[in-house]
C-alpha cells in the first residue's frame, strides 16, 4: 500500500471518530444544561392525550417482511454488480455479455416476483 493511500485510510477513521464524538457530545452537553423535572404525565408515551393501553412494540404487517426479503435479494445482486462495474473499463467484450446474462436472470426473477403480486401494497 502506498503511503498516501494509508494516510487516506487513517483520515477516514479520524473522520468517523470525529463524527461519533461530535454526535455524542451534543446530547451530553444538552443533558447537563437542561432542567430535569420529570412527572408521571411527562413520562407517559405521547398518544395525543389518550392514556396508552398497550405496548407498541409488537408484530407489524407481514408486507414489511416481504419487502425486507426482496430488498436483501436485490441488494446482493446490486453488490455483485459493483466490482464488475469498477473493472468494466479494463475488461473486454466478455464483461458486456456476462453482465447482460446476469441482468437477464435478475430481470426474470424480478418479473416473477412482480407477477406474484409482491409489489401491490393496496391489497
Amino acid at each position, binding site marked *: 500500500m502506498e503511503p498516501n493511500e494509508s494516510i487516506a485510510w487513517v483520515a477516514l477513521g479520524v473522520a468517523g471518530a470525529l463524527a461519533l464524538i461530535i454526535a455524542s457530545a451534543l*446530547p451530553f452537553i444538552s443533558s447537563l444544561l437542561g432542567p430535569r423535572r420529570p412527572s408521571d404525565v411527562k413520562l407517559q408515551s405521547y398518544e395525543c392525550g389518550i392514556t396508552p393501553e398497550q405496548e407498541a412494540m409488537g408484530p407489524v404487517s407481514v408486507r414489511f417482511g416481504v419487502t425486507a426479503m426482496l430488498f436483501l435479494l436485490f441488494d446482493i445482486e446490486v453488490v455483485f454488480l459493483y466490482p464488475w462495474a469498477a473493472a468494466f473499463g479494463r475488461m473486454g467484450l466478455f464483461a458486456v455479455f456476462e453482465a447482460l446474462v446476469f441482468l437477464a436472470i435478475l430481470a426474470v426473477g424480478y418479473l416473477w416476483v412482480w407477477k406474484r403480486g409482491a409489489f401491490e401494497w393496496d391489497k
Partner: protein
Amino acid sequence: MGFWEGLWRMALAPLVVLMVVLTTVPLWIWLERRVCARIQQRIGPNRVGVMGLLQPMADAAKLIFKEDITPAHVDRVVYLLAPIIALVPSMAALAVIPFGDLQAADVNIGVLWILALSSLAVYGVVLAGWASNNKWSMMGGIRSAAQMVSYELGMSLAIIAVLLTTSVYAASHGGHALSLRTAVNSQQGVGPLAWNFIWHLPAFVVFIIAAVAESNRAPFDLPEAEQELVAGFHTEYSSFRFAMFYMGEYVHMTTLSAVCTCLFFGGWLSPFAGIPLLARLNVSTVPVLMYLAPLFWFFLKVTLFIFLYIWLRWTLPRMRWDQLMALGWVVLLPAALVWVAVVTVLAGAGKVVDGFVFSGDGWFRLLSLLAVAAAYLIYRRRRGSS
C-alpha cells in the same frame, strides 16, 4: 511529506470538512424557512441577525437548554443511542466527498463508502421508532425502513450506470473507478455539456427521486407524516435529541446533494470551463482564486440541489403509501436496471469503435442521446395512439 502536511491530511482536513458541513446546516434551515415562507406568500424569519440568518442558531441554543425527557416505557439504551446512530453515518459519509482540493480522506472506494453509510442511516430512524414504544413512532420507523431500502436499490443501480463510464475513463486516464475524484475528472470537457446529467439522464432522474425519498422528505415524508403520525419516529424525542434528527436530515441532504454533484454535475468543475468565448473567465491561473473557485462552484451546485429539495417539499403533495412503494419498486428499480443494461451495451460498443471519428466517451455520449431520444419518441407515439 513533512509533519504538518501529515497532520493536515490525517486529522485537520477531516475536522475542517466536518466543521464546514455542520456550519452549512443552519444555513440550509434558514434557506428552507425563507423559501417556504416565500412560496406561501409570507416573509419568514427576519429578526435574529441580518435577514434572520441567526434564527437557526437561536433555535439550537434554545433546544440545548430544554429538558431531555426520556419517557418511562422506552427501551432506554437504544432510545438514547438512536439519534447518534442517525447522525453519525451521514456525517462520516462526507469524508470521501472531494470539494475541489479539499477532501477529508482521499480513499479509492469513495462510492462504496457512501453507499455503505447511507444504508446505515436507516438504523437510526428504525431504532428510534422501535425504542420509543409509541404507536406513532413504531409506524413511522417501520415505514421509513421499508421506504429507504426500496429506494436504495434504484439509487445504487443509478450509481452503477455512472460507474461504468467512469471505469472506462479510469482505464485510459488512470485513477480508481470507485473514487468520486475520478468521477468528477471524467466529466472534464466543454462546460456543462460534458457533465453526466446529460449523458446519463435516466440515471440522474432516478438518483434525484431516490435521494429525496432516502432523506425522508416531502413528497416522500410518510415516516413523519404529521397529519397521521404526529411526528413519526421522533414523536417522543425532545431537547437536543430531537434537534439531532433534524440536523441529521439536513446533513443527509447535504451528503446526497454532494454525491449528486460529483456524479452528475461535474463536481468542482466550472460551467465555463472549455468554452472558447468565456475562456477569459478562467481563473485557474490567479493564485487565490485557483483554490477558491472549485470550492465556490461545488457549494453553488450543492446549494442548487438543496433548493430543489426545498422547492419540491413545499410544492408537491404527499404521496399515498402504496404509490410510494410502487414508484420505488415498479418504476425506479426497472428503469435503473434497463439503463444499466443500455449503458453496458453502449459503452461496450463505444469501446469497440473507440478512436473511429470519436475517442473516449464520444461514442457512448452520441449513442446515449440517441437511446433517450428514441425512448421518448416511442413513449410519445404509444401515448398518442392509446
